[in-house]
């Protein structure tokens, strides 16, 4: 489903984040990417979603080389993804409901089906009673859960979660890990970048470690 073929990523100034990384993630897999801060976990996820392009090598999703993809086709690829951002990327002038509804509106869901879908997603992350609140009124952990609700509301084929439990207390972190696991069991390919050992230990999964710009498969 996702394939990295000798991918290298170098940022301006010569900082090499990834060096000749090859990786294959099959449909329905649950993969946890670990590594210290700055190891390139977020870059790896950004490359998967076509947010960034590799300096060398190529990334393919469903057999499609992202470097050769026409810009017009990119939004349709992105709709297959659910993205959980480390910095949430919420819209603070909209309500919790409207934040979660945005992916459905982008895809063009019927207005009548949107409330049900949004409520279901908010219920899964425990924010149903906050749907009319503005995101600014939520705690850091709640904002993180809101970001997760937005990522799963359109039932994506692939969920890319960058530090999804970073701001959560242990109970919620465990609940979110369980939610990601249940999504994976429902057929969603899930890739989680985390340095939270409690989360990676909780998930019976394939682990990849990024160290010194290289990728190391770890035993589950």
């Amino acid at each position, binding site marked *: 489903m996702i394939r990295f073929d000798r991918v290298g990523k170098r940022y301006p100034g010569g900082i090499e984040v990834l060096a000749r990384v090859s990786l294959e993630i099959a449909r329905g897999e649950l993969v946890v990417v670990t590594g210290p801060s700055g190891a390139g976990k977020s870059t790896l996820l950004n490359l998967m979603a*076509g947010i*960034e392009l590799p300096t060398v090598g190529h990334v393919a999703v469903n057999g499609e080389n992202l470097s050769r993809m026409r810009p017009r086709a990119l939004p*349709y690829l992105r*709709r297959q993804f659910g993205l959980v*951002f480390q910095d949430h990327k919420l819209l603070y002038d909209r309500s919790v409901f409207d934040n979660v509804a*945005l992916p459905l509106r982008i895809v063009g869901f019927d*207005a009548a089906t949107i409330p049900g879908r949004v409520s279901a997603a908010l219920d899964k992350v425990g924010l149903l009673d906050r749907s009319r609140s503005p995101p600014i009124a939520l705690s850091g952990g709640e904002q993180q859960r809101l970001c997760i609700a*937005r990522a799963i509301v359109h039932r994506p084929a692939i969920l890319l979660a960058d530090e999804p439990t970073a701001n959560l207390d242990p109970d919620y972190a465990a609940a979110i890990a369980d939610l990601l696991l249940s999504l994976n069991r429902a057929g969603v390919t899930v890739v989680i970048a985390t340095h939270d050992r409690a989360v990676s230990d909780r998930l019976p999964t394939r682990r990849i470690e990024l160290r010194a710009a290289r990728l190391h498969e770890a035993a589950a």
Partner: protein
Amino acid sequence: MKVWVAAHRYAARQALARYARRLLAASFESAVLGLAAALPLAFLVAVNNIADFAARHPATPEISIYLALDATPAEVKDVAERLRRIEGAEVRFISRTEASKLLRRSAALADVLDALPSNPLPDAFTLRLAIADTHRLDAFRREIAAWPRVDRTHVDSAWAQKLEALVHAGRLAAACLGALLGLGMLAVTFNTIRLQMLQRRDEIEVSRLIGATEAFIRRPYLYFGALQGFFGAAVALALVAALDAIASQELAALSESYGIILELQPLPVGTSGGVLAAGAALGLAAAWFCAARAARARGLRI
């Protein structure tokens, strides 16, 4: 189709919500656009009223028809009958004797006429027609000139041509002014949309990240631009209507003192509709340019 309609409904709601959220600022922007558009519109109203006044108080153009000096009374009668058969024509016969008498009223010309062995003036007709179009009038003159015993013809339409040229120049000036201020309106709307896009760059970035097409991102701005242009045009029409009402009162008082009735005609409903549509189209175009420019300027692949 359903998806397309849903997307447009969402974009229109977004645009209305944005307009409502910044009602005061948006109203001021619309007022600025309205003021800019009101100037050429008021000018156009004035020109239209001049044209209308001229049409209602015509100094009907005349064709002067001079017969041959040796035309017999029967031939003169024949021409007179042909002229009277023309629908709507007002025919006046000036015999050569009457013409001579008229000329003799001027002392200088009386001496000249006395010095001549015979009356050099021909029998003549003046023909008044309810035709304002000078080209049609000239074609008519040429037709009469070809009649037997007609020596010369002349259209006295200089004033009509001058007025027509004046009205034409006035309309042209209004169009030029409109085009210039239209460019100004484009610039104002472009800038408003640009500022909005800058304020909402986070939203645009997030939308792109989660799969929004450029059309989806652009749409609310297009609706907003169209709304702003529409309201700007509405403000312009309201201003022109207010000016019209004030000027009408003043003009009525003035014209009464001259014993005539003058009334300013407002912009026709069709033209007002056109102004509203043009305002919306201008706003839409400005928003489109701005959104297209923003999409091109996008450096990041997000």
